[in-house]
Each structure stands twice: as structure tokens, then as C-alpha cells.
């Protein structure tokens, strides 16, 4: 009797896990379909290419060009990765290859903690420190005027936000490099740094790419913190100190307002769909690379 119950439980739980995973896959598919469905009106009105490449954003005149927003998103994301990647690499190399065990045990949870801080806190921090610092001390050296609410501020705040993510992936990647491989290099008379550079980093190139791509997809979707420091003006930035208006901020700022304009909701849904597709593809690529790394012998 009790055996049968155990068997039943076993079967049930196996099924529950299957159903739960199917459910989560289904959710992704449904979101994708929902976004497509909602954005189809505007796709019937204009070609996708026109929507993506036009800078005209005049909802009242029924013109929806996403180009400035896309550039805004790419700009802050690009700046964020350019800042975050070298720092994350150095930090991860230090922790994985040099730090004494005790220091590693302190640093790793601290870095994990960073990724748990709510975005709004980073946003406030950006507004209180980064924005005024750029406006008062950095921008004056380069441009006539900048409020400090600009692409650079967004990039810096984002860099700080993706840093812990990239570091923790890099640490996992470096840990998959076999100890014996490092010992082989060391026993040939290489120093620790030569070994790190020529063997560990080389072996980790796919993982570094994966971490970067994952960082990009995290950065490109980040909304609140960026929205608070970017200035949110839909224009093509000419310097780091111009305001930008990334896609997620566009959606967050406007959804729910101005819904009386016929195509407005559809346009916002299209920008959500664009983000969704970009993030989905980037995530898939990096997961695939990481999966490959973990399974190589």
C-alpha cells in the first residue's frame, strides 16, 4: 500500500515538474504571440523597415519612427558594456586566479548581493551622484551644456548593474578550466599571469562572449534605473552628454497615457516586441554557448 502511494507520488511529482516547465515555456510563447498580435495594426499601416529607420515620432500625426529610441538603447547599452566588461574581467580574474580563499568567500556573496539591489535604488544613486557629477565636472570639459541627464549617466548606472551578473558568469566559466591545465602551463615555467592570459582566458573565450551577450540583454531591457538618469529626449545623441530615450523607458513612461491615439498602443507593443526578440535571441545564444562549455569534457 505505502509502496503504491510512494510510486504515485513519484509519478505525480515527475509530471508536475514537466507541466511546470511546459507552462513556463508556454508563457514565453504566449507573451511573444500577444505582443505580435497587439502590434500587428501598426505593422499593417507601415512597413517594419520604415518603423525601425524613421526618426519621426509624432503620435498625433500618426507617425511612429523608432530609430531614436533604438539608438538610445544601443548607446546606453554599448557604453555600459564598454565600462563593465573590462572591470568584470579584471575582477573575475582576480577572484578566480589570485584571491586567497578567504577573500573569495567574502567577495562572491557581496557581488551577488549587488545584483539583488532593486533597480530604483541604482536609479536614485545615479540621480544623486552620477548625474550631478557629469553635469558639473565632466561635461563642461567637452560640451557647452549638459544637464547631466545623458547617455553617459545611463551607461554608467547600467554598467554598475550588469557588473555583478557578468562577474558571476565569468567566475563559473573560469572554474570550468581544469586545474591540471593551469599546472601544465606553470610547470613549463610560465608565471601565474602568463598562465591566466595565454591559457585560462584563451580557454574561456566562448564563455566571455556568452557573459557579454547576457550582460547586453540584461542591460538593454533594464528600464527604471535608466529612465531616471537618461533625460528621455527622443533624439540622436551627438555626444555622450546628450539625452537619450531608450526603448524600455518609452514604454514605461507612456503606456496607459494617450491611449486615445489610435495606433499608440500598437506602437508601444511593437517596441516591446523588438526588445523581447532581441533579448530572447541574445539569451538563447549565450545559454547555448554556456551549455556547450559545461558539457565539454
Amino acid at each position, binding site marked *: 500500500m505505502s509502496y503504491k502511494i510512494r510510486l504515485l507520488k513519484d509519478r505525480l511529482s515527475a509530471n508536475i515538474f514537466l507541466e511546470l516547465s511546459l507552462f513556463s515555456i508556454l508563457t514565453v510563447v504566449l507573451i511573444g504571440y500577444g505582443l505580435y498580435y497587439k502590434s500587428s495594426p501598426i505593422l499593417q499601416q507601415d512597413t517594419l523597415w520604415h518603423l525601425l529607420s524613421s526618426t519621426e515620432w509624432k503620435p498625433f500625426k500618426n507617425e511612429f519612427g523608432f530609430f531614436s529610441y533604438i539608438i538610445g538603447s544601443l548607446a546606453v547599452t554599448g557604453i555600459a558594456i564598454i565600462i563593465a566588461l573590462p572591470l568584470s574581467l579584471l575582477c573575475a580574474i582576480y577572484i578566480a586566479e589570485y584571491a586567497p*580563499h578567504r577573500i573569495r568567500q567574502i567577495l562572491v556573496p557581496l557581488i551577488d548581493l549587488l545584483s539583488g539591489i532593486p533597480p530604483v535604488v541604482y536609479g536614485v544613486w545615479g540621480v544623486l551622484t552620477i548625474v550631478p557629477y557629469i553635469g558639473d565636472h565632466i561635461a563642461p570639459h567637452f560640451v557647452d551644456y549638459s544637464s547631466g541627464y545623458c547617455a553617459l549617466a545611463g551607461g554608467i548606472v547600467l554598467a554598475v548593474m550588469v557588473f555583478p551578473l557578468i562577474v558571476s558568469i565569468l567566475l563559473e566559466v573560469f572554474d570550468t578550466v581544469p586545474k591540471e*591545465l593551469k599546472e*601544465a602551463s606553470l*610547470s613549463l*615555467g610560465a608565471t601565474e599571469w602568463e598562465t591566466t592570459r595565454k591559457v585560462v582566458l*584563451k580557454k574561456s573565450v566562448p564563455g566571455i562572449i556568452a557573459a557579454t551577450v547576457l550582460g547586453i540583454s540584461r542591460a538593454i531591457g533594464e528600464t527604471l534605473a535608466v529612465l531616471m538618469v537618461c533625460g528621455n529626449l527622443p533624439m540622436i545623441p551627438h555626444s555622450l552628454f546628450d539625452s537619450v530615450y531608450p526603448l524600455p523607458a518609452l514604454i514605461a513612461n507612456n503606456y496607459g497615457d494617450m491611449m486615445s491615439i489610435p495606433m499608440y498602443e500598437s506602437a508601444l507593443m511593437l517596441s516591446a516586441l523588438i526588445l523581447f526578440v532581441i533579448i530572447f535571441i541574445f539569451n538563447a545564444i549565450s545559454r547555448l554557448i554556456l551549455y556547450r562549455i559545461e558539457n565539454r569534457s
Partner: protein
Amino acid sequence: MTFESPHIRVKDLNVHIGGNHILKNINIDIPDKKLTSFIGPSGCGKTTLLKTFNRLLDRNKDVQIDGQVLVDGENIYGKDIEVTSMRQKMGLLSQRPFPLPMSIYDNIAYGPRLHGTTKKKELDVLVEHYLTATGLWDEVKDRLNGSAARLSIGQQQRLCLARGLAVEPEIILGDEPTSALDPISTQKIEELFLQLKDKYTLVLVTHILRQARRLSDYIAFLYMGEIIEFGPTEDILLRPKEKLTQEYVKGYIS
């Protein structure tokens, strides 16, 4: 058993890892240009002892090493020792081959490049020389720029040996270097070891008694972190004095 001028002399070596006493009062002389084998049951400390010779052991956490290891009379745990140049003197073959993540050519050229040989012509000569010395040249000469990972395991191990020889070591440490190999590859590695005895001091960890017998001049029997007996091959395998050694070579303990 001691030698007048051993290549490696271990004096009162004690190793603790994470509070466990792994190597206990090790004293041993490794003779110059001979092959010395460490035998003993798995977990007795053979690998650990070998790794104290090129200071790879102290890279691990919670390792405490007391005592001395003298290489050519110099204590490698002394203050002014240059660890990298000391390690360069010792080639290492591990249990499984670990080719570096680069081409066959670059695997061999890796060490010489680090130590200042950068001219393509000189490197070409070195690569051919050491691949020939390990019997690989004919097998790989058409794919020198191919990835080393695509070689068979046996070829990889010979590549690792060639790579080690290319930095002109004086000592070669082998940690069960044939344990992952098929019989034919094993035989090739064994033949190479026999050839290398003229020029190098070899230290071989093995748990295969017949291999120890075929290759070694001297054998040390380790048990639970202690050297129980050390002597010429025949004495240890055929006329062991200690009871534990007798039991081990007869196969009662393993």
C-alpha cells in the same frame, strides 16, 4: 638509502592538507639520471609527494608544508627561490594529458616562447626536434596548425611530453602518465621513458607493479603517507624487508 649527490633530496618533509597529516617525515634521495618510482596504494600520498617537488602543491588551499626539498642542493622552499625557473627544470606529465588550448605547433613552442625564443626558424627546428624525439613527427607533421585537442589521447600524452622536453628540463615527473592510455600508447610512453633515462632524472608515480619493474632503477614504497621502504628495484620487488612491502608486492594490500 642515501646517495652522495642526489638530484633531489627530501629532508624531514611533512605535509598537512586541511588539518590532515598527509605526508609524514619523508626523507628520500632521488638519484641523478636514474628512474625512481613511487608505488603504493591509492590515496597513500604519491601524487602529493610528487607535487611538492615543483611547488604545485602549495597553490592549493589549506596546505602546510614543513621540511626541505633540495634540488641540486638548493632548498626550493627557501626564501630567495625563483619558483618559475625552478619549475622550468621539471617537466610534468599528469594522469590524463592536458594539451594547451592551441595548435600542436604552439603547444611545443609555448615554453620556448616564454623563455625568449621568438624567431620562427628556431621555433620550427625545436618543434620538429621534440616531436621527432617523442615519435610524433610523422604522425602530425601535416597538421601542425591543427588543434592539439583533436589528437588521440595517446598522441596527446606524447605531445605533453614533447612540450615538457622543449623547455630543457633536468627532471621529469610523471604522475601515472599511462593510466588513461591504451596498451600500445602505454608501451610507447614506457619506451620513451627508458630512452630518457640517459639524460634526465625521472620520477614516476605508478600503481602498476610490472610497469615499475620494467622501468625503474629504484623504487620507494609509500603507505599511509610514509615511505616504508626505498631501494633498488629488485630488492623492493623480490626481496622486500618490511612486512607491509611484502604484503603489497604480493598483492595482499592494494
